[in-house]
């Protein structure tokens, strides 16, 4: 109670409703971080107790302690695998960004181009990657290229569709203004359409980041025992055959953590680029 009272002596606002509102705001601020962390810790604790109290054998469900232990013990092998998966994910994401934005720009430059090629993009998107992947690995000799292609097919669509939407969302009065001032096609793209599309693109990037990881993992499953350069998905398969359940969990943990990190980075990037001007990144005071 002392903290709010201290504040009240500084600010002249002592209206009861305002005070309650300020308190609720502070509570929200704290809960925003502590609540998810506490719930996560509680879940891990329950997981541990579940295993211990029911004496579940570790080859059926390992406790969280054992998973961490395995993670440390097998770190050499798992970190190599993590690096492989991460590499494919990031490369696929990079190619998805280039391909998605590039295609979107082409689409907006020519309606006919969009009419001609949009169906292909949709077909690629709606066909499950697991069903295309075996074919890809038959036709593409290079295993890395095959994995990359699979991950790319999954990841590029949200970037393409979001960026296309963004490029077409320019304010019509601004378009008129550019026309009046004799803007070239390139100037319009660079100064008007690309900035307008930026928030849409960043929304797509957040989705594509997660999808690139999913694409990388799924295609690794399909590629199977490729030998050299095995990623996390391959390690999970392999550990499964050997009934090394703790290692499966450790690898799973790494994949989940990677996904969270990618999402966080994309969100941070989004905030960094938009916080000065875009509605989505601006906190309103009401």
């Amino acid at each position, binding site marked *: 109670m002392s903290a709010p009272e201290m504040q009240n002596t500084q600010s002249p606002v002592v209206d009861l409703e305002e005070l309650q509102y300020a308190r609720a705001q502070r509570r929200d601020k704290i809960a925003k971080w502590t609540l998810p962390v506490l719930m996560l810790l509680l879940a891990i604790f329950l997981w541990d107790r579940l295993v211990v109290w029911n004496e579940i054998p570790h080859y059926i469900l390992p406790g969280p302690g054992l998973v961490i232990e395995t993670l440390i013990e097998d770190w050499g092998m798992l970190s190599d695998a993590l690096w492989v998966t991460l590499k494919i994910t990031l490369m696929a994401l990079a190619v998805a960004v280039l391909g998605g934005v590039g295609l979107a720009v082409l689409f907006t430059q020519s309606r006919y181009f969009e009419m001609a090629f949009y169906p292909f993009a949709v077909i690629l998107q709606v066909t499950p990657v697991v069903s295309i992947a075996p074919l890809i690995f038959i036709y593409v000799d290079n295993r890395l290229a095959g994995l990359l292609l699979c991950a790319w097919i999954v990841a590029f669509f949200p970037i393409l569709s979001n960026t296309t939407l963004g490029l077409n969302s320019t*304010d019509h*009065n*601004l378009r*008129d*203004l*550019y*026309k*009046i*001032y*004799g*803007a070239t096609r390139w*100037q319009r793209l660079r*100064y*008007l359409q690309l*900035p307008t599309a*930026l928030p849409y693109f960043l929304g797509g990037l957040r989705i594509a980041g997660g999808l690139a990881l999913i694409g990388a993992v799924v295609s690794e499953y399909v590629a199977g025992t490729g030998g050299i350069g095995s990623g996390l998905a391959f390690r999970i398969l392999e550990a499964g055959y050997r009934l090394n359940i703790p290692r499966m969990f450790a690898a799973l943990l790494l994949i989940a953590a990677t996904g969270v990190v990618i999402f966080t980075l994309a969100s941070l990037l989004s905030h960094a680029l938009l916080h*000065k*001007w*875009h509605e989505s990144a*601006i906190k309103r005071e009401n």
Partner: protein
Amino acid sequence: MSNTSSIPPLGQRDALLHMANIDKVFNGNVEALKNLNLTVNQGDFISLLGPSGCGKSTALRLIAGLMRQTSGQITWNGGLNEGDLGVVFQEPTLMPWATVEQNVWLPHRLRGKSLDDVRGDIMWALKMVGLESFQKSYPRELSGGMKMRVSIARALVTQPRLILMDEPFAALDEITRHKLNNDLLMLRDKLKCTVIFVTHSVFESVFLSDRIVVMAARPGRVSSEVTVDAPYPRTEEFRTSAQYAELCRKASDALHGAMNQHGERASA
């Protein structure tokens, strides 16, 4: 644009723009404009007043070159050169990702001029609208009236011969609208520029302009012209004067005349 000489009285001004027998037909059957004739002189402050659908905005878009007329001629005295036109829309139409300064830079930027080269022009334009200390602000940090001022500064930055304004203050509250009306007249007095101002408001058109071109709808055409012979500068006192009231009545009658013309046509 000299600041020393004053605008000559109506009837002694040089022609700037002539629109002759302009027709504009949409979709092959909608007559947006039919036989529109209008001469704009240097220094005119013309209001285009009329009901919705009378083709005011279409006329503006034709002058701006955003559309081509179906038939008729638009001729510019001395030709239309780069930077001759400034446009202000009903919305401020600013780029939200760009600062005030960058927004005002736009007309120059699209002609390949760097920010450093035209900073003087930008600061001059911002000073004209009283926003020189907001050059680094983003549009979202400004009020509706201030955004509109930035929009006006952007239109002024090339020192255009003609400024087109399409109901620029319609979305603002009345107090802000009056303030911007006063400031616009001050600007016009300083810059001696020519303005075509589209509005729905009889009161606004009388306060601002020296020529009110009243338009009728379906098909869009010039119905009549009201000359506002009150001298500039016009101040807040003019707003409450008997002369203003009388002129408003005159303009209002002309507008009703234009709407009745339409009614007769519709019933005929």
